């Protein structure tokens, strides 16, 4: 596949105004599926979490998961939406091999939540946060589909020898959050898109309604983009880039599509209304399905489900369960922790806010918590290409590692090896220290022998110290450390050297 002709991003804004639209699918973390009692655990053996209902067997019927409705209402409230007094599910009829009934049970003209907004903080040129209001059209409930696996050299449906379908995911509850067209973002459109998805993810995490893992598909973003002649106030033809699965990709996809649309329009050609595929590796989009003939989903109310009519008392009660607004929370935490603007921005940017908060809550100083999460752990997350929160190290473990440092059992250097052990699943921090023999040695017997060896191997240095040049002790400490593979108690080593050479 080849990249399209592009207009440099900086020049797009000279002639065009972008309009964004984001459709974010959030897979809920309910224990059971949207319309049946099957478990929703990620990564189970294919087709082990299925029943007649989620397999769409003839005769089987759906029943709504009240917990999923509750999550939908809480998401709606957190997005400042109105909650429907009465709404229904509808059937969206289309064919796809991973869809057991060949229709998806979704909501159409009667979503559970509608007309909301989210104030998104976008950094400006000066690096300060600026607020941009994104209006929410609706948040509706639907079910996920199964997953196809195309077996063959290409890994794609075309040219596959055969295809396998795993229906474990079929019927997992999804909330689809759709924005109204986002206009007026100008050159900040890619940043707004990224910041919106990031902030939405933070909100979902704060609500506790989803695992919110973009890498596992529990949050998936479809990015709509159109360009209109500058100042025209109209909306151009849009493209929909499907399943963008990282924050960085959201930003890049918007940037790419803006440049591509501009190039097409500059040439006097027209944009096709179509879905596009995002290619993470090359950073481009390619044409998917053309949507020029508007698809006819033949929606109609799902006759197997009674309408959903959340009582106002329930909605009010759920309003009381909403967490602090993430933006307000951020300001509060920054003040509490004494972080600089830059430190705070890096923390948020790395997706480490909650991890640091929980580490601090375990009794660790803010700076120490930040040091591990944004240093050592961010580096490792980066190597693995995941968010820090996706690492298999918990805030409690990080806090324990720092406590071990504070108690003098290990030092920062050894702590890094403890993280190696934690990431390799070798047990708790204490177990890793024990199993790998990482504890600092302060026993005079073992240290004395190493000090003697160091003195014997460096007679010149020893003489200098005997002559009162105490600063030279560093070289001997280094030698002892080397022999003891960094595990010597440096203070005690220094004392022993000075004792022996006085």
């Amino acid at each position, binding site marked *: 596949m080849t990249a399209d002709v592009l207009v440099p991003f900086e020049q797009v804004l000279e002639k065009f105004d972008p309009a964004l639209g984001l459709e974010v699918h959030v897979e809920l973390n309910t224990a059971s599926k949207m319309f049946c009692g099957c478990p929703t655990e990620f990564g189970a053996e294919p087709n082990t979490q299925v029943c*007649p209902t989620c*397999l*769409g*067997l*003839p*005769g*089987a*019927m*759906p*029943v*709504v998961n009240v917990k999923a409705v509750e999550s939908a209402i809480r998401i709606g409230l957190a997005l400042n939406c109105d909650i429907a007094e009465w709404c229904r599910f509808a*059937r969206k*009829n289309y*064919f796809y*091999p991973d869809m*057991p*009934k*060949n*229709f998806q049970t979704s909501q159409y003209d009667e979503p559970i939540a509608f007309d909301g907004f989210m104030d998104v903080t976008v950094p400006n040129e000066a690096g300060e946060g600026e607020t941009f209001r994104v209006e929410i059209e609706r948040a509706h409930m639907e079910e996920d589909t199964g997953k196809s696996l195309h077996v063959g050299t290409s890994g794609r449906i075309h040219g596959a020898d055969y*295809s396998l379908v795993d229906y474990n995911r079929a019927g997992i509850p999804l909330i689809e959050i759709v924005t109204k067209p986002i206009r007026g973002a100008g050159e900040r459109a890619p940043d707004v898109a990224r910041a919106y998805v990031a902030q939405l993810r933070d909100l979902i995490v704060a609500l506790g309604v989803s695992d919110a893992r973009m890498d596992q598909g529990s949050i998936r973003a479809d990015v709509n983009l159109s360009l209109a002649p500058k100042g025209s106030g109209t909306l151009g033809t849009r493209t929909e880039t499907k399943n963008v699965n990282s924050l960085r990709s959201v930003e890049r996809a918007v940037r790419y599509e803006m440049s591509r649309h501009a190039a097409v329009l500059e040439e006097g050609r027209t944009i096709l209304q179509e879905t596009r595929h995002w290619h993470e590796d090359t950073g481009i989009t390619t044409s998917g399905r053309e949507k020029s003939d*508007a698809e*006819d989903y*033949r*929606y*109609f109310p799902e*006759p*197997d*489900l*009674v309408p959903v009519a959340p009582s106002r008392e329930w909605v009010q009660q759920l309003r009381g369960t909403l967490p602090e607004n993430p933006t307000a929370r951020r300001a509060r935490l920054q003040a509490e922790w004494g972080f600089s603007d830059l430190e705070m921005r890096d923390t948020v940017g790395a997706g480490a806010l909650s991890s640091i908060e929980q580490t601090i809550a375990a009794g660790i100083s803010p700076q120490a918590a930040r040091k591990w999460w944004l240093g050592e752990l961010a580096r490792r997350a980066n190597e693995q290409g995941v968010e820090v929160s996706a690492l298999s190290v918990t805030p409690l473990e990080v806090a324990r590692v720092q406590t071990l440092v504070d108690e003098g059992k290990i030092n920062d250097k050894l702590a890094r090896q403890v993280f190696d052990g934690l990431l390799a699943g070798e047990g708790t921090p204490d177990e890793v220290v024990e199993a790998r023999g990482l504890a600092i040695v302060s026993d005079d017997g073992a240290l004395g022998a190493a000090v003697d060896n160091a003195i014997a191997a460096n007679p010149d240095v020893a003489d200098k110290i005997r002559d009162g040049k105490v600063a030279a002790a560093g070289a001997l400490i280094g030698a002892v450390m080397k022999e003891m593979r960094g595990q010597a108690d440096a203070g005690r080593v220094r004392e022993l050297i000075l004792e022996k050479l006085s």
Partner: protein
Amino acid sequence: MSGLTRHTAAELADALAAGETTSVEITRAHLDRIAEVDGTAASGGVHAFLHVDAEGALAQARAADERRAAGSPASALDGVPIAVKDVLATEGLPTTCGSRILEGWIPPYDATVVARLRRAGLPILGKTNMDEFAMGSSTEHSAYGPTRNPWDLDRIPGGSGGGSAAAVAAFEAPLAIGTDTGGSIRQPGAVTGTVGVKPTYGGVSRYGLVALANSLDQAGPVTRTVLDSALLHEVIGGHDPLDSTSIDQPLPPLVDAARRGATGDLTGVRVGVVRELGGEGYQPGVLSRFQESVDLMVKAGAEVVEVSCPHFVHALAAYYLILPAEASSNLAKFDAMRYGRRVLPDGADNPSAEQVMRASRDAGFGDEVKRRIILGTYALSSGYYDAYYGQAQKVRTLISRDFAAAFEKADVLVSPTAPTTAFKLGEKLDDPIAMYLNDLATIPANLAGVPGISVPSGLADEDGLPAGVQVLAPALADDRLYRVGAALEAALVDKWGGPLLDRAPALATNGAVR
């Protein structure tokens, strides 16, 4: 006890309780009767069954006898065998919905109705024939060949539940389960001289009932007497958490109502005769049997009023938009990918999923099914939704209002169940509209979700074939059907000097043509 197949379910239950017979004897007698008269479509037999499970039924009968010997029968009908329409999922037993596309499919689960029958100890004799996916009024649209009417083997047994009605009328089963989307229990009941009940929508679980039109479908009893229907209704009815549209309320006392009705007293009951369900298009012999029934009800003490339901004239049109719309969506799952029959297209070496789907559907679905898929797809398509489906839903609301107004004036409404007696096989096969008219009187109840019963009203003078009278009640008032139905039945049986089915001709053995 002799002539086991001639007894009603209530009589069999009494005999079992008294230790006069066993469930194994009863079940075997019915299996023998099936072997004797059912035959095949080709041999000209009744062909009420698509699948007979002799081994399974006898095993269940033995278990019932053991329970009774231990003094713990599971229900009032424990040990009384039953036939089930092939549209209900039966674990381990084929379920085809009368369609080639499900040929050989054995569900891994039981419909709630079936689970309740098993729990209550009713041995399941087998699965009964039906119009493909319950689309039709004659059982001629079964992909496995038609069922024949035991009163006249050249005639249809009604549809789509012709198999269930014929099995009961031919004494192959004392009880059967049918499903009624626009009259598929009541209309076959009328033309075979049996009793059929469509309960209140949501009164009997739809879980495991392969949907034709979800908002209309309702499973219910097919029996030879009103009391038997009440007994069966109490076994299969009631709330089911697996069906979100199932009513979360206890059933009214149905068996009590039937027993009360059987005393023949209808004093204080207001019976409404629906002006729009009679007259033009109705066979004179059917109308005169109906008038006779009304007269008998008056004699039993009922007060008769005429009521008008002006929107019933649009019911058929609304029904034939809503039904295909829902059906087109329901049938989309039959893509030959996961279960059912798969047909590979001719001449394609390495066919795509779409090609396999097309070939399978072409071979797997019959003409009537294809016709309704096309109709429904059209009615739902964008730009036409409001004109068709949306409009039909409005008519539905108006029909519900007609019922509400009529039930202000009357406790129950009555009409002939079907406009004519059984027509000849093949007679209306090429005229779908003529076929559709058979459900004229039954459809309004499905659109409004109200319950209805069809009780045999006698034989039409001009052809000597059975006709039925329909009684409708407000939603949740199913007990009224049983009270009025039982009273009418008592009066009619008294007049005839015995059950109507006793007048049916004897059937030749081995299903041979007479």
